[in-house]
């Protein structure tokens, strides 16, 4: 696979050339908070940022998005009929996305392109985006990507993978889209990719945190579901939804109609399995009425149901955001340890609550 050398002196010029064909996005600091935003003219992605507060999933999956619009005016011929709203799917590029977040997009894609249906909103944005990744040579102490099916130099989901070599970047071209972007930016000098290989080994060695997942596939679902450690783990949870909102692999959403006078939109907003009304029926019956059930659902989904359903590993990429930001310090590493080390032999098959 081709590797390109990009002199840092050429970086800004390349970005300016890209602006003619792409909308550019990257990690920047907004009032001291690191986040992914559209880059203004002349703005470059901030290379000091390691982990953004919210993941870049909002670039293909906005928190609030209008899906359709309709008129409720009785005099309108088309009243009550939902119509698609105009969207901008012009080419865009994300510069400086980390490998964990890019792999997360690949996992989320399995949901929005599920073999029977395709979600046009997510897929159109995803396919219009070229992902230029930045390898992590200095991972955070909370990163556990290497045990979550990913890694600081992981290539899944990326079109180009950049590695910072001091006065230049080395860029591995991973797809035609990546090639097209590099061409447009004028980054064409080929180079030897060896430093990236050794960089990868060094970076992986710096990861200290881990999740345990080797026994999850084989463990009995009902045994995990009925285990006795959920009460202890879920006690402190305040069902705030922070974990789901910052997580790059969480994709649950809500569909709401909002009406302004005689016009309305049908929109979708991020939703969270942590919220009490997520599963409530019209009758008032709520299958996940208690905090314990909701917390258990989140971890079972991430570490068990997803594993069973797709056989592609856990629904987590080890970015560490939930660990950093949970207000009561519920730690997925602790939970995965509890689940992974469950002694299912001594489990009674009668279902608990």
């Amino acid at each position, binding site marked *: 696979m081709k590797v390109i050398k990009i002199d840092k002196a050429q970086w800004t010029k390349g970005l300016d050339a890209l602006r003619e064909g792409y909308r550019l996005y990257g990690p920047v600091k907004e009032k001291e908070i690191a986040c992914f935003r559209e880059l203004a003219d002349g703005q470059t992605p901030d290379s000091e940022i390691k982990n953004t507060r919210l993941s870049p999933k909002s670039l293909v999956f906005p928190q609030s998005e209008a899906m359709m619009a309709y008129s409720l005016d009785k005099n309108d011929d088309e009243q009550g009929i939902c119509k698609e709203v105009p969207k901008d799917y012009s080419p865009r590029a994300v510069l400086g996305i980390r490998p964990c977040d890019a792999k997360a997009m690949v996992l989320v894609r399995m949901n929005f392109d599920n073999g029977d249906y395709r979600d046009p909103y997510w897929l159109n944005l995803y396919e219009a985006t070229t992902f230029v990744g930045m390898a992590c040579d200095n991972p955070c102490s909370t990163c556990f990507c290497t045990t979550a099916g990913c890694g600081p130099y992981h290539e899944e989901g990326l079109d180009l993978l950049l590695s910072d070599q001091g006065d230049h970047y080395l860029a591995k071209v991973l797809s035609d889209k990546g090639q097209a972007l590099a061409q447009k930016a004028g980054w064409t000098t080929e180079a030897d990719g060896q430093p990236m290989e050794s960089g990868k080994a060094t970076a992986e060695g710096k990861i200290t945190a881990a999740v345990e997942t080797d026994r999850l596939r084989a463990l009995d679902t009902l045994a995990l579901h009925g285990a006795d450690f959920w009460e202890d783990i879920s*006690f402190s949870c305040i069902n705030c939804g922070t974990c789901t909102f910052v997580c790059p692999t969480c994709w649950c959403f809500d569909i709401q109609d*909002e009406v302004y006078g005689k016009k309305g939109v049908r929109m979708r907003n991020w939703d969270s399995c942590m919220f009490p009304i997520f599963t409530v029926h019209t009758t008032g019956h709520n299958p996940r009425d208690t905090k314990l059930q909701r917390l258990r659902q989140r971890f079972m989904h991430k570490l068990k149901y997803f594993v069973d359903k797709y056989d592609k590993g856990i629904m987590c990429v080890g970015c560490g955001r939930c660990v950093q930001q949970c207000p009561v310090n519920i730690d997925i590493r602790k939970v995965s340890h509890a689940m992974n080390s469950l002694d299912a032999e001594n489990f009674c098959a009668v279902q608990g609550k």
Partner: protein
Amino acid sequence: MTAYTEKIREIAQRLLKECKVEMVIGFRAGTMPMMNEPCFIRKPDQADQLVWDSNCGINLANYLTNRKEGKIGIVAKGCDSRNIVNHILENKIQRDQVVVIGVPCLGMIDKRKITRETEGEILAVTETDGKVSVQTAGGETTFDKADVLQSNCRVCTHRNPVIHDEMAGDPVAEQTDVDPYADVKAIEAMSTEDKWNFFDELLSPCIRCYACRNACPLCYCPTCFVDESKPQWVGKSQDPLDIRTFHFLRAYHCAGRCTDCGACERACPVGINMRVLTKKLNKDCLEQYGWEAGLSLDSRPALDIYNPNDPDEFIK
């Protein structure tokens, strides 16, 4: 505050051994710097899990409502204990259901402030004798604890628990030379346009995660007004109108009940200082009705009763 940890463990162990309580709610050590995790223990030999330090900012009274247990022990600092009084006055729990392990509090440290003022990723934080040492890959910085206190702790005038059945330490001196409402007064003095911009900026990062509401012990409604659908009061999107409605209305629901414990701000993942809203309403309650929440089991909350002397200039 390690002396507190020993005492809390001893008290918890004793209460469980003597079957005075079915569970004790406290904190155990977290996995991240400056974080502790609320937990519960049911057996005396689990008492070793409990810790207490300046990272216990989450309000444990939040976990007291709707519990099945008949007798619960709970570790409570000054503001937490006022919320327990509140819960009792609002009939969420009976007085004889709780055994309060009171903790005279010298203030919690502000995790966000320390992160802002430190270069690089924080790996460990330790506190000794009024100094907070912060360790990064690049070295160590030391702060004076007084400089990195949570903003509500800096102006706290109720550090000692107002009710307790046990005490984890001797009472501490209350602060008398602080103005709890200085920040609110600064906003009140702004022009209308400045105030509008201030609140606009304050609430713009909100992602509607409801961490503030969920961390608050006062917010225990079975269905919060933002979750109602028949009728729907508030939209669920990022429309600034809806975001403001949520925050302002929630503040009103906490009027005269908020004890300024700071759990809301601590829980917020995007660092919104929404306490200024509830504090403004607390200030109004104090000035108009002479009322501060949760100080005594013997008086009804201000918005529960009326007095012939209540201010009535608004009646024209």
